């Protein structure tokens, strides 16, 4: 446990205009889980891509087992025993597990025809089976990848790296897509791997996970190493401060909510999916003024379609949606905006903004035709600009100018533009889907505060997030969606991570679910 298997010495990498890695030193010991912690843009992924041969460092060197290693491309990395599990799976969906694992290093049988030899699927699938048994990673080698669950696909990714003979595994944000139970399983797998002689670099921005599984922690900030420590030596707040560079409030002070009458009521709503099977199935719930109703669930269990049906982007086939008693089922987005609905969509770049438009134009996307921005014939640019300047100051949007395209802003600032636009109108209901996906701790803190403020002003908030922590820290009541149904509804005070996790995985169904509160 003491010999370093991987050492990075003074790795420096520039991108045009950015110093992504500044003279980084890092070492990984044998049979160790070493966490690399940092915000988005701290340089974690860049560093790992250098180790894996996808980027070339400007300077610095890499030592594997105390030997300098010349890693030019992923093949060199694999030869040196380094394998990477990417955040976005690098699996071909239409191919089988076996085909995905053999890709790039195919085994053939029969005549030695090189690239035109016959693929030996049988042999490889047997190897995968025995490898899976050895490390407790069970998958069906003949299954097609697109039919696998996210957790299974990740096991395939890890198997792929092991199959290629890696001893050093780099896991890039592996828990981003997993349920709490799947995360726990992953940690078990990681411990088992380390027990069998592997070493793991675990990249993440989640403090809790680092403390749960890592032997050592290296924190990166703005391309530099802030420090290396162990989980026992620091508490969560200290780690967060190292990561962000200042003290951060990890839990939102959400105060007391004062719910009033029902604003949004959804009754027996059913929404068809691509193949006409219901993806939202007979869902009923209500959201009151001045409360935050959180919907938890693993991605792809109907949350997206539910939000689209409520916000007028998709048609439902049965059931109805009411805002303040008025039936708004299947109305279009503009009529819904008039009814007092604000929507912060899941995919901010696709549905939230017109990326090529300026910041000021994006801030009036729903109101450009109304006073004072227009008199019905012309748009008044000076009013638009005045409005933009006001909102930029109020919502702390960091932009050099309000006339530049919104595409040149960072993700956090783009999200702030959407939130500023939605909250600057007189609204009754805020539907906010994945409000902080991919954002840094600072922006998350700001956005959470704004959501609480909106609630305190008497807005009914429907919050949808795959981050269970976000749901738990903001919501007053929590509904859990599984397989298109609302399988549980729990007051926040009674909600526990474990219980929610079981509901999210579909392992338990509450008897009293689907009961409308009004």
């Amino acid at each position, binding site marked *: 446990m003491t010999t370093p298997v991987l050492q990075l010495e003074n790795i420096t990498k520039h991108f045009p205009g950015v110093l992504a890695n500044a003279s980084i030193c890092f070492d990984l010991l044998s049979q160790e889980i070493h966490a690399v912690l940092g915000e988005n843009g701290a340089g974690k992924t860049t560093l790992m891509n250098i180790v894996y041969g996808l980027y070339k460092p400007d300077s610095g060197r890499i030592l594997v087992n105390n030997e300098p290693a010349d890693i030019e491309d992923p093949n060199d990395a694999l030869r040196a025993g380094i394998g990477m599990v990417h955040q976005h*799976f690098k699996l071909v969906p239409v191919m089988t597990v076996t085909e995905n694992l053999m890709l*790039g290093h*195919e085994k053939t049988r029969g005549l030695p025809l090189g690239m035109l030899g016959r693929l030996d699927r049988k042999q490889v699938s047997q190897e995968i089976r025995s490898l899976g048994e050895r490390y407790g990673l069970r998958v069906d080698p003949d299954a097609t990848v697109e039919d696998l669950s996210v957790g299974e696909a990740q096991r395939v990714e890890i198997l792929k790296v092991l199959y290629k003979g890696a001893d050093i595994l780099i896991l890039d944000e592996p828990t981003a897509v997993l349920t709490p139970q799947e995360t726990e399983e992953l940690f078990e797998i990681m411990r088992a791997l380390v027990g069998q002689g592997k070493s793991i670099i675990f990249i993440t921005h989640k403090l809790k996970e680092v403390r749960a599984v890592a032997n050592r922690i290296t924190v990166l900030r703005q391309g530099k190493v802030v420090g290396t420590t162990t989980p026992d030596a620091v508490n969560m707040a200290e780690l967060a401060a190292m990561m962000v560079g200042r003290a951060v409030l990890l839990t939102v002070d959400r105060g007391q909510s004062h719910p009033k009458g029902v604003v949004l009521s959804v009754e027996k709503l059913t929404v068809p999916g691509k193949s006409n099977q219901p993806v939202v199935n007979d869902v009923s719930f209500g959201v009151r003024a001045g409360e935050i109703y959180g919907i938890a669930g693993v991605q792809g269990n109907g949350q997206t379609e539910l939000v689209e049906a409520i916000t007028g982007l998709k048609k439902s086939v049965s059931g109805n949606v009411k805002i303040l008693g008025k039936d708004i089922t299947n109305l279009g987005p503009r009529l819904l905006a008039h009814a007092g609905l604000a929507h912060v969509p899941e995919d901010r770049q696709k549905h939230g903004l017109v990326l090529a438009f300026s910041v000021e134009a994006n801030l009036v996307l729903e109101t450009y035709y109304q006073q004072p921005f227009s008199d019905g014939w012309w748009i008044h640019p000076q009013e638009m600009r005045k409005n933009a300047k006001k909102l930029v100051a109020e919502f702390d949007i960091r932009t050099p100018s309000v006339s530049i395209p919104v595409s040149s802003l960072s993700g956090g600032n783009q999200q702030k533009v959407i939130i500023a636009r939605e909250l600057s109108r007189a609204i009754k209901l805020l539907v906010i889907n994945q409000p902080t996906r991919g954002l840094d701790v600072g922006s998350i803190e700001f956005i959470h505060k704004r959501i609480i403020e909106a609630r305190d002003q008497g807005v009914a908030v429907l919050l949808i997030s795959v981050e269970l922590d976000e749901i738990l820290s903001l919501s007053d009541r929590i509904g859990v969606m599984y397989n298109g149904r609302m399988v549980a509804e729990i007051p926040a005070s009674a909600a526990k991570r474990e219980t929610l996790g079981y509901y999210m995985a579909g392992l338990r169904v509450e008897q009293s679910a689907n009961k409308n509160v009004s």
Partner: protein
Amino acid sequence: MDVILVGLFSLAIIKATPLVYGALCGILGERSGVINIGIEGMMLIGAFMAFMGSALFGKWTGAAFSPNLALIVGLAIGVLSAALVAALHAVLSIHYKIDQVISGTVINLLAAGITDYAANVYIDPSHLSGVGVFPEVPIPLLSQIPILGKIFFSQQPMVYFMFGLVIFLQYAIFNTPWGLRMRSVGEHPSAADTVGINVNRTRYINVILGGALAGLGGAFLVLESVGRFQKLMTAGRGFIALAVMIFGRWTPVGAFLAALLFGFAEALGVRLQFGDINHLYALVVIIAVIVLFVGAVGLIRSWVIRSRSSRSLVVNLSLIGLGALTLIAAKLIQFPDMAIPIEFLGLLPYILTILALTGLVRKAVGPAAIGRPYEKQ
């Protein structure tokens, strides 16, 4: 089975051959992620250069060699030229990341313009004539099989080569490292990249190989069909080849079957102009052939493409039986004389194709990363 039908099917194979070559070109490109709508242009260049190569070789060497040698030389030149044009498409769309549809269109326009001009300057004034076409080579024994022997095994060499190529590529795309890599590059290039596959090199190789196949298709029109070059002689076959590729779901065997259907339509159109076939009889034959085709496709799908969800064996076999019975029955019935405009009869297979593509066959899904240049993040 009578002489007319056998002749018709035999002609259908001939008419299908350039379509198959064109579709294979499309399959190699698109399976590796590059759209190729320049097949038409590549075929046209292939046809022109094959003609020029064989005609000039024949003219310069006089009668010193057998005309077949001139044809082989022409074939090689046609294939190489089309591969060069494909290389241009590859450079434009892979290296310079130009929109692949536009690059393909450019190639079509370029090929039409260049061959038109060159034909005006080099062929018309000197009355350059071709050296004929490849002879028919009946395969011993196999060509003696009743009906099938006449249809499949009494053809010209490039037709046999096409049969072999279809079988070989069907095997290679799904069962060799080369095929696995090509498909991975077309489906998820960054996955291929992370396991050390050179995405752009893979695409270059396959687009250029595809161009060579399109060149074969073009050369076929000259060297095994008419024996001389006519302006714009591909007449949209490159585009029909694209439809054939999609109808065949990006598989060689699928494309071969689809091409047979289109080839049959073309053959029928040609044959009906002789005026000795009863139109109602032709109509029944078309329907019977389509029923036969649907059954055969279902059968082959459950074999070759290992599709689990296809129709059962019984249904497929009874479709084939029904089609064959109708063909035989149609021969025995005396149809009343009735003139349907020839063009309508020729249209029927296309209309049924459209119906099949839109409704009956489930949606055809192409490679996922098609048309997108690969960029590392």
